[in-house]
């Protein structure tokens, strides 16, 4: 069966904001010499098939033929391939690293797509149709029609216990997840509480246990019943998995040690928000420090609103 | 049939495959019975096959021909042909075997060894404990040894633990293979007393006692096995 051409997505934000930027030299086909969004159409179709399967079987890791990308593994080659495969001309792309739009990794991936596809990019969560992320889920609630693409280093949550791929597949197939709790047990026995703070394992749609990539567990509750589609790409490990919109995502725990997110005692030093994930920033050589939102977009928006 | 144990025309030989298949005959044409309250002592020189008869009755040696019938309540079981599980069940409930040697179990105290034997023989935990203490006391095993594993005991001390082990439960058929060999006169007298108590309770004994005093003290009948040894070649 031949795949139908990928349909263009109608632009969900018909009134572009002033912040919306265009890639340098962006043309309809992107920079000369590259196919739209870098990957050839055959590769994109292959990746889309994997994505469709991943959506059909939430939390299940679908193997795909990961391509060499013009960036090293560890820089988000999995996420970039997923983004390239789903990107349409009308999409608006946001890329964050931790929560920030302005780090090297985020900037270079955003620029990569601006040059190779010419799509609009943004730093505003509300304007984006596709958000590629490493480590964070934006604080601004996502909405229907948005797609969150995660860059994943190690997709297999059972890997730390079981090095054999044949065995981990078997464990997933039979839903034998007792070993997953061993990791949490070890945490409690060592630290008195579940000390895993990121890549905290979740059960998706009551079936597959999934590694939510190195996002802080603070963001786990945002994955649950999210209106947005969540896609996960691991380039080196060649796996794609997905959480469809409005799917249950439950963080594993014990009855007497229930799942809890990190709590921050102080509000953000810049925007004053509480209930956001904060980064510690060292401000001088004498150990001075402050805590600020890791999500730079919401923080800047709040500061700007306060100034008005 | 009232006999507890009946040998019917039993024969036994050993085939030594490692020595070119040479056949060593042990006994032949063995027929004897042990009735409740009876202590049948096997007589005859060493090498005549006395121990082999006891071991066959216990299922420890195979039996080449004939039948060895053991009464188990209302039924009779041919030990010569019994399935291993039936044999194990008989050993647990019906047949006690006391040899000269205690097979030492590492790290288990003397008292526990005896008590465990009682429980294996169907006694309750409390009953087994009480009887074990009583028996070790009657057999003059010093209190200080009770909590120690018998591995380091002298031969006589080990033998007394072994006797207590063999006699603690209420099994109706006792097979005694020189249980008093290295005991002094006073302890032999205790064993004789214990045997009499078992007989009075309706048990039957098939035993080997080289010591004539002991033999005279317990035997109700002596069967000379020399004739079985002579019949073995036949």
């Amino acid at each position, binding site marked *: 069966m031949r795949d139908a051409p990928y349909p263009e997505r109608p632009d969900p934000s018909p009134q572009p904001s002033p912040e919306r930027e265009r890639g340098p030299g962006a043309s309809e086909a992107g920079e000369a010499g590259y196919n739209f969004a870098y990957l050839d159409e055959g590769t994109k179709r292959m990746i889309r098939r994997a994505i469709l399967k991943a959506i059909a079987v939430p939390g299940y890791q679908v193997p795909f033929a990961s391509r060499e990308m013009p960036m090293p593994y560890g820089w988000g080659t999995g996420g970039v391939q997923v983004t390239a495969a789903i990107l349409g001309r009308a999409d608006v792309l946001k890329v964050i690293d931790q929560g920030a739009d302005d780090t090297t990794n985020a900037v270079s991936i955003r620029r990569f797509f601006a040059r190779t596809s010419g799509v609009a990019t943004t730093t505003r969560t509300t304007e984006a149709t596709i958000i590629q992320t490493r480590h964070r889920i934006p604080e601004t609630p996502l909405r229907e029609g948005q797609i969150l693409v995660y860059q994943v280093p190690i997709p297999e949550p059972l890997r730390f216990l079981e090095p054999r791929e044949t065995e981990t597949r078997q464990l997933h197939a039979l839903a034998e997840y007792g070993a997953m*709790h061993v990791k949490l*047990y*070890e945490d409690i*026995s060592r630290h008195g509480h579940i000390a895993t703070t990121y890549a905290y394992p979740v059960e998706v749609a009551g079936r597959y246990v999934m590694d939510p990539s190195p996002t802080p567990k603070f963001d786990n509750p945002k994955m649950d019943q999210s209106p947005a589609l969540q896609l996960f790409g691991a380039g080196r490990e060649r796996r794609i998995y997905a959480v469809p919109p409005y799917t249950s995502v439950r963080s594993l725990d014990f009855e007497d040690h229930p799942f809890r997110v990190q709590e921050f005692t102080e509000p953000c030093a810049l925007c004053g928000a509480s209930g956001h994930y904060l980064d510690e920033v060292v401000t001088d050589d004498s150990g001075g420090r402050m805590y600020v939102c890791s999500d730079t977009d919401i923080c800047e928006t709040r500061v700007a609103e306060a100034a008005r | 049939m009232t006999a507890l144990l009946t040998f019917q025309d039993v024969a036994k030989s050993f*085939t030594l495959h490692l020595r070119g298949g040479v056949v060593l005959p042990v006994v032949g044409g063995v027929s004897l019975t042990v009735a409740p309250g009876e202590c049948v002592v096997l007589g005859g020189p060493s090498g005549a096959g006395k121990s082999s008869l006891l071991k066959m009755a216990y299922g*420890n040696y195979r039996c080449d021909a004939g039948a060895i019938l053991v009464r188990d309540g209302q039924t009779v079981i041919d030990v010569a042909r019994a399935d*291993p599980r039936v044999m194990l069940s008989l050993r647990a409930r019906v047949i006690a075997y006391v040899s000269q040697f205690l097979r030492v*179990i590492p790290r288990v105290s003397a008292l526990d060894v005896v008590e465990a034997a009682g429980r294996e023989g169907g006694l309750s935990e409390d009953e087994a404990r009480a009887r074990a203490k009583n028996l070790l006391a009657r057999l003059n095993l010093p209190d200080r040894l009770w909590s120690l594993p018998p591995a380091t005991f002298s031969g006589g001390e080990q033998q007394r633990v072994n006797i207590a082990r063999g006699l603690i439960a209420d099994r109706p058929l006792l097979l005694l293979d020189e249980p008093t060999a290295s005991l002094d006169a006073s302890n032999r007298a205790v064993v004789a007393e214990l045997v009499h108590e078992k007989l009075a309770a309706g048990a039957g004994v098939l035993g080997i006692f080289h010591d004539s005093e002991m033999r005279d003290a317990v035997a109700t009948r002596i069967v000379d096995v020399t004739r079985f040894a002579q019949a073995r070649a036949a």
Partner: protein
Amino acid sequence: MSTPLLSAHGLTKAYGNRLACAGVDLDVTEGEVLAIVGESGSGKSTLLSLLAGELAPDSGSVRYRMRDGRSRDLAALGPAELRRLMRTDWGFVRQDARQGLRMAVSAGGNVGERLMGMGERHYGRIRGQALDWLGRVEIDAGRVDDPPSQFSGGMRQRLQIARNLVTGPRLVLMDEPTSGLDVSVQARLLDLIRRLSAELGLAVIIVTHDLAVARLLSHRIAVMRAGRVIETGLTDRVLDDPEHAYTQLLVSSVLAA
């Protein structure tokens, strides 16, 4: 006699043209310890793998009486059911503790894993059971958070036993559980296995090349040679009055078994 807990009929497995297991019949029931003895290469480890469903036989079958009382052919169980059986109703104590334990996970985590696999989700109860079992296998409670990589050989084997017995299995397979241990350590382990199997009424199938181990632990014995069971019966009878020429050789080759 009631149906045996496990029974094997005509188990046969060949590697190329070498028969590792040829028409083996055996059965075992609750409260019974069956020893399988033989030299290395006699097929006893292959037999254990066939019984455990780790290897598929070329012919023959293994039946097991499930907890509902029904006897099932292991080959007819799906992989999920078979694996669940293995980690709840069966135990497998390996010769090499590294194959039977998670070496980087604490002792408590090792014991608790099977409970978590059965759906226990209460940390306090899991830890309580782990501590209870460490006590029963004579491992100090203070070691509950240490990984077995820091344990001696004897402790590792005892930990394997605790890890297997915590779910209350009815059948435990053991593959040379005492080999490679010092004599005194061996004695302690043997005593523990003896005591626990009697107390819990376990059916145990133990593979060993050591006749002294077989004598101390087992009620019945099966002697294997070149893939066949050549002699079987009461342990003390087979060892004291061996019938088959090979068994006589085996018995005469060891000191005071």
